[in-house]
């Protein structure tokens, strides 16, 4: 068969969102790839300049539909940095709990979306069943299933409801049991390993230059996590470890990236438990929150997909003058020709799925 271009997307089961991957194939081997974005470009940055600071949390919620809290949190952090707001201790603990719950839900969303890529529908439904548990948890304080609008500038919207801790503990226990149970179905399954091992390899040095961050970078064995290395909230007071895996010396494949996320889920459970143990009483909202701001500030946080950075410039009015979002997936998708070349067509979903794509944040 001669070389030909296949255009996958925007409507394609592989894409997990709206983007087009054009691949040049020789038979079934990928020779070249060209990702194309922009089908979901909603001009969030421009619209943010028209809205007041506090209203923008609705936009940041909708940045990444799988992990909205982390993005709102990143925005709130950077605006708090800009406005020099002190967040109460209890609010910080609640934020950490919500962030980790969101990370769990986001990773479960990813795992659920990854399994059909490998032809494993049951896996998807198992993970989505567990995600439902965490959505119910997140729904209880915030009042919405997906886009919470819970973290506000200066704290959180309201305190955790009664019995939240017990409910969380029950669900975490159930989920831990299930994770152990799933090991046989997924990571210990021979066919699953055949599909994911030695596929989509890149080294740590390559990944850093390509702009790949987050679990994908930790899958190469690099110990880099912004919760530790640019610490925020109360992550420095809590005892936890950065989870890394590597497929070989300094490189990652789909399986190591999968395992990193599974390990991170276990780690998140640990963090949540410890947060509940240490949580003090107190207010959940800063007493005085300015409306207007001047200057510039940025914070970066560890999103479920990598490094999230928001850069806010204020000009003294009640709306941001410029607001820039750094999405981890934007650069990761741009690098996809580097890690797709040489593999088969059937590997495309396996590789792109293991990267954990979210187009909402990418296209902004």
């Amino acid at each position, binding site marked *: 068969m001669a070389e030909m271009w296949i255009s996958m997307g925007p409507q394609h089961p592989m894409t997990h969102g709206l983007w087009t991957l054009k691949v040049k194939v020789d038979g079934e081997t990928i020779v070249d790839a060209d990702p194309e974005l922009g089908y979901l470009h909603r001009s969030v940055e421009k619209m943010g300049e028209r809205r007041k600071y506090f209203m923008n949390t609705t936009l940041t919620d909708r940045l990444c539909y799988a992990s909205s809290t982390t993005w709102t949190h990143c925005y709130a952090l950077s605006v708090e940095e800009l406005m020099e707001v002190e967040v109460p201790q209890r609010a910080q603990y609640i934020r950490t709990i919500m962030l980790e719950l969101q990370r769990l839900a986001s990773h479960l969303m990813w795992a659920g979306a990854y399994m059909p890529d*490998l*032809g494993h529908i049951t896996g998807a439904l*198992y993970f989505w069943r567990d995600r439902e548990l965490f959505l119910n948890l997140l729904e209880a304080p915030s009042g919405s299933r997906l886009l919470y609008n819970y973290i506000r500038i200066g704290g959180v919207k309201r305190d955790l409801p009664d019995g939240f801790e017990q409910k969380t503990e029950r669900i975490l226990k159930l989920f831990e049991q299930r994770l152990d149970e799933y090991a046989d179905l997924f990571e210990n399954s021979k*066919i699953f390993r055949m*599909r994911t091992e030695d596929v989509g390899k890149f080294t740590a040095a390559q990944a850093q230059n390509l702009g790949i961050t987050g679990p994908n970078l930790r899958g190469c064995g690099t110990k880099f996590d912004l919760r530790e290395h640019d610490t925020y909230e109360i992550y420095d007071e809590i005892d936890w470890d950065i989870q890394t895996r590597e497929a070989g010396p300094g490189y990652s494949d789909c399986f190591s990236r999968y395992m990193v996320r599974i390990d991170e889920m276990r780690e998140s459970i640990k963090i949540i438990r410890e947060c509940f143990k240490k949580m003090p009483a107190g207010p959940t909202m800063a007493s005085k929150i300015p409306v207007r701001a001047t200057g510039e500030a940025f914070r970066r946080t560890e999103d479920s997909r990598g490094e999230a950075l928001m850069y806010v410039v204020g000009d003294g009015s009640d709306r941001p003058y410029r607001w820039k979002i750094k999405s981890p997936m934007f650069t990761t998708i741009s690098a996809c020709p580097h890690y797709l070349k040489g593999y088969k067509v059937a590997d495309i979903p396996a590789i792109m799925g293991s990267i954990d794509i979210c187009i909402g944040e990418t296209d902004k």
Partner: protein
Amino acid sequence: MSLFSFCKAMAEWTADYMLIPVFNFQAGLFPPFSNPAGDIADWLETDGGLNTLAWLFAVNIAFAIGMTNLIIVIHLERKIAARIQDRRGPMLSLRSFRELGEDLAGNSPSWRFKQNYAGIGILQNMADGIKAITKELIIPAKADKFLFTMGPIIFISSSVFLLVLFPLSDRFAASSAPAGLMVIMAAFSIAPIGVLTSGWASNNKYSMIGGMRSAAQLMSYEIPLLLSMAGVFLLAGSFDPVTIVEQQQQSTWFFGLPMWNFIPQFIGFIVFMICILAEVERVPFDLPEAEAELVEGWTTEYSGIRYMLFLAAEYIRGFAGAAVCTILFLGGWAGPWPVPPEVWFLLKVYLILIFWIFIRWTVPRIRTDQILELGWKKLLPLSLINILIVIFMVEIYPYLSDTLTLLPEVF
């Protein structure tokens, strides 16, 4: 009483009391030269005419059983999948027929939907099928129109053809040829032509890759499949399903249990199971329609009833594959007495089908190169080993045992 004699009796009855009087009546109405009704009546009285009519009945019965099975299999698949995934699956119940009845009566009833989704769900397949009839049939502008329409016809006809080739038991068979299984396997390998044709004719890159994959998969799996079947043929000395099943029943194991072929030929059984899975294109071998990378594989461009025919044909092929497996390795319709053999046969087939359904919802899909590697590098040698074992059993072991029993007499 065998199926054919039953059909023959039915044909005689129908011919005598229904068809011949009608034709004779018609023949009397018109001048004899232009009207063939009288000739038909005469022909129906002969042995050939009755046989033909009996054949018609037999084929129709087999077809009806096959189609009923098809619906049951699809329903089984959906329900078992749902149970594996901790949910309920389709629940469209007979209660929703009430709405249909109200429609047919011509009155417009109040809208009640709550009770519709609280049943076993067997109506869901009916609804899907009937809906497919009403859908528009789209032929893409740049497709090869003739081949595009021919693809589903080849696929479904070869699959339905399979249905009439199976004996449900030695007495319940629409057709029984001495080369029965060879004909079945030949019919099995017609369908990929339809796949390739429709994949190519759609003028869609996904469809074409799907068709190509199908061809490649067929080529690499047909050989180990037939080689693993060869062991059974050698053991039975025949291609006839009836002979094969009888042979399995005759050879006994300890405690006088029948030694079905999957015991002596365990390797062959495993190879055959893998190959027939690949042959009927089920997960983990459903590469031609791999949903993740090739949208719907070779069926991407097909709409409406054409697509439903593909779907139905796939399940028919699955059913047929399980039936072949039962005949070859699991003793066919043999089983303890109080249950009729036809039921035994269907039970075994359904057992295999359920096993396949479990496999389908348990493991991911295998990659193209891995599937070909498995076929050529692993299954082919294994099937050859199986043949060696059978040759040892059939030819060398009797010779050796004869020699061994003779040895004391010699010395």
